[in-house]
């Protein structure tokens, strides 16, 4: 086990190295000259030259890459072009609001989805199952943006149940701003999750051990909750862990729309302002988080499922 973890951790190095190469190529080679983005159309030759020198763009590409690599390793990404803030400070400031929104919403979604999917499987092939399925499928056919626009319009604007947008950093006062985005988050993701968990659970329901459990005279409740659920945890955990990196960036639309100053909102602002260094830093951080979550997922699955071998 320990050797496996060590090997997996070692494998992260070439992958993260690759990520730095890819982001560098995207932004510094394919992306054209960022000086024009920063200066607009009205820069004079001399000004452009000075700026290029300031940004280090007149140096050869390998040197620029090494500079970027150093930034990634030391977590010091320089300053934003739009606000001139230190990017590392922006990141640390953004994590709090992002997590306050995403972590509760994430857990509410998981718990509700697992409960609903068990309920569906319990009443499988009945009217309840059919109705919930139709509902879930219909829910996945609507764009996130439509949920957000309608949610804000009805709950906040029309019925005045929540503030329209904004954020307060006080620990107690932030929740009134986060409640509506959270509800929308759950509404957007629950249909998809329920369908996924349902098929994971249904795959187990026809296994031999379930028949044995029933033959022993166990009630359907015990069979589902004790036997089936435990065995269907592997695909469920995998799918849950794959969403963990999205907790940081996935709320992009929600955060931007409701004016929550989290990392997602930061990305939105950076795209709107062509804030090159911020997008680059977020791309790197997002990838590192993804890789780590992926590893955590594999480790968790191997803990839950003794059949997984460490090769």
């Amino acid at each position, binding site marked *: 086990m320990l050797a496996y973890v060590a090997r997996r951790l070692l494998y992260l190095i*070439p*992958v*993260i190295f*690759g*990520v730095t*190469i*890819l*982001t560098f190529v*995207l*932004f510094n080679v*394919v*992306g*054209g000259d960022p000086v024009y983005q920063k200066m607009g159309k009205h820069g004079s030759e001399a000004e452009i030259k000075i700026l290029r020198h300031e940004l280090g763009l007149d140096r050869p590409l390998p040197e620029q890459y090494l500079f970027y690599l150093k930034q990634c390793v030391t977590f010091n990404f320089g300053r934003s072009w739009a606000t001139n803030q230190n990017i590392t400070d922006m990141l640390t400031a953004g994590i709090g609001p992002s997590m306050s929104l995403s972590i509760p919403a994430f857990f509410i979604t998981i718990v509700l989805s697992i409960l609903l999917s068990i309920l569906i499987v319990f009443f499988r092939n009945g009217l309840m199952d059919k109705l919930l399925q139709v509902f879930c*499928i*219909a829910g*996945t*056919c*609507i*764009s*996130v*943006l*439509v949920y957000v*626009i*309608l949610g804000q*319009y009805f709950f906040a*604007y029309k019925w005045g149940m929540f503030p329209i947008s904004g954020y307060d950093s006080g620990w107690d006062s932030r929740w009134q701003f986060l409640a509506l985005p959270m509800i929308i988050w759950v509404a957007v993701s629950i249909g998809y999750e329920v369908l996924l968990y349902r098929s994971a659970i249904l795959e187990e329901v*026809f*296994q*031999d051990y379930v028949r044995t459990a029933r033959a022993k005279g166990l009630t359907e409740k015990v069979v589902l909750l004790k036997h089936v659920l435990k065995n269907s945890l592997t695909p469920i955990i995998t799918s849950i862990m794959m969403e963990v*990196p*999205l907790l940081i*960036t*996935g709320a*992009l*639309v929600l955060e*931007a*729309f409701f004016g929550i100053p989290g990392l997602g909102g930061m*990305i*939105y602002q950076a*795209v*709107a302002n*062509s804030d*090159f260094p911020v*997008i*680059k830093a*977020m*791309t790197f951080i*997002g*990838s*590192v988080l*993804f*890789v780590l979550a*992926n590893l955590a997922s594999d480790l968790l699955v191997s803990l839950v499922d003794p059949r997984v071998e460490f090769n």
Partner: protein
Amino acid sequence: MSTGTTATVEQNQVSSAGVSLWSDAYRRFKKNKLGVVCFFIICGYVAIALLTWLGLLGADFSVNGPDSYAAPSSSHWFGTDIFGRDVFARGLHGTRIALSIGLATSFIAIPIGVTLGAIAGYFGGLVDDFIVWFYNVVESIPDILKIIALGYAMGRGISTVYISIGLTTWVSLCKLIRTEFMKHKRRDYVQSAMAIGASHKRRMFLHILPNVFHIILVNLSVRFITAIKMEVVLSYLGLGVEPGQPSWGIMIDDAKLEMARGVWWGLTCASIFMFFLILAFTLFNDALREALDPKLRNK
């Protein structure tokens, strides 16, 4: 796993009776009424897309009218937008853009995914290690950030949407194809092909590929769903198609300002068009998967 030996024997009998995978899949697909209905709905959308493209349908989509934000009426089924243009006609044209995004991204992503997956799975060894490393790297950058990065690199426009979604969504297919090729290359029919002197290329693309083609087909239909949804988010981020274009993403994005003025028809029209297309693709995809999955064959 749950199917015992009897099921396996039956399965072998079915295939030895001269029923090919495809005709069997067709037979089973036909039985799924919902899937067939969805197939025809998709065909309807394709027809709309072709007709708008040829200018035979909704030709007045970009004609400015006298009434800004006119409510739905018999002459404008979904009212008009800020420039007095017919919203329904723009919704029809959105079909063309949505399907073109699905199609164009498939043309980019599927060849990349299939080729890399086939090479990695077939040759194995160092080549495999390299390709696995490469797709791990690409996968590590969250999709939306990859698309933003590419969009940033290429500027706004529909070709950016095609390329950025296309270049970011090939990994899952590549993984599936790689595993299948690893399984298939050891099978007897591939060994026999080698024995009669078939080249690597021939074995990969003439012998193995047709046997894994169903995976590509299912992937194609999922791809449309992702691409259409992605387009809306890109429009919101300002990285989608040009603002003047009649895409559903732009229509929905415009609604964020229109709703407060009581203008609900733009959002409704685009959402209805999108809803039924994605629904049709989702259910069609389920039916397709069921028909093509050999594990579900005798159920």
